[in-house]
């Protein structure tokens, strides 16, 4: 069966480090960085590029629209 592969891009400067994407990701692939962006927030980042299935959960819950999810079908 075709498998979905995904990857997310976080708009780091837009991110407010609310952590909601972290919780929303069913595969626990997102965490907050230890460094801060220019606004002083610890921003979100994807920890594991391999496992993401592009489900978009993280993007859907992000209140600030910081996450773009890229998907491709892998046979």
């Amino acid at each position: 069966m075709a498998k979905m592969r995904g990857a997310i891009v976080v708009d780091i400067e837009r991110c407010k480090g609310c952590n909601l994407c972290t919780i929303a990701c069913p595969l626990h692939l997102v965490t907050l960085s230890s460094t801060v962006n220019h606004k002083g927030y610890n921003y979100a980042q994807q920890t594991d590029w391999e496992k993401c299935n592009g489900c978009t959960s993280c993007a859907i819950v992000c209140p600030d629209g910081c996450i773009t999810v890229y998907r491709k079908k892998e046979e």
Partner: protein
Amino acid sequence: MNETPMHYCPGCSHGVVHKLVAEIIEEMGMEEDTIAICPVGCAVFAYRYVDVDWIEASHGRAPACASAIKRLWPNKLVFTYQGDGDMACIGTGETIHALNRGENIAMIFINNAIYGMTGGQMAPTTLMGMKTATCPYGRQADLHGYPLHITDLAVNLEGTCYVTRQAVNTVANIRKAKKAIRQAFENSMNKRGTSLVEIVSTCASGWKMTPEQANQWMVDNMFPYYPLGDLKNTIE
């Protein structure tokens, strides 16, 4: 949803609902036929983020403002976007009467049980025992009265065609909320009466929690008092 960074606090429900509103308007192709009315409250700057014509109404009076506009522009999508202080406190009269007249507008009601913008004061929807800046020892019936469930009142008003209570804390709830808002918008276009979509929301800042804690607190405390689901739907 445009590129302007939002002024909301981290994790604020307003952001999620804004996204839904923007998406629905785009999906309906209504960008050029919408007149949106935002409140006095944290969503006062909603006009910065969603690209339609916006009006910032005075505190609580968005329903009156919208009533006039929909009557003058019957073919536009007209909706209000209001907080609980705005809609259920200072604007109670305008809310009840717009609902009761059956104005063909949609009303989105962000119930975060607090006055976010002014720094976390008690709202009419604040739960019993909940602590805020103006009830720092917890809401108490004799001092502060009871939480007002204005959405339930709306059900009994003849002018309403659709009354529902939603949340945006999970992907599933976000999807449901989106459907509800879309239904409300369609009702406005089809002149079916007034639709009221309550979104039970968090205000991490006002509640003095992290966004995660706030979501959990909402599930544990708000949902029992403000249960989710459709309360009235005369359309189906």
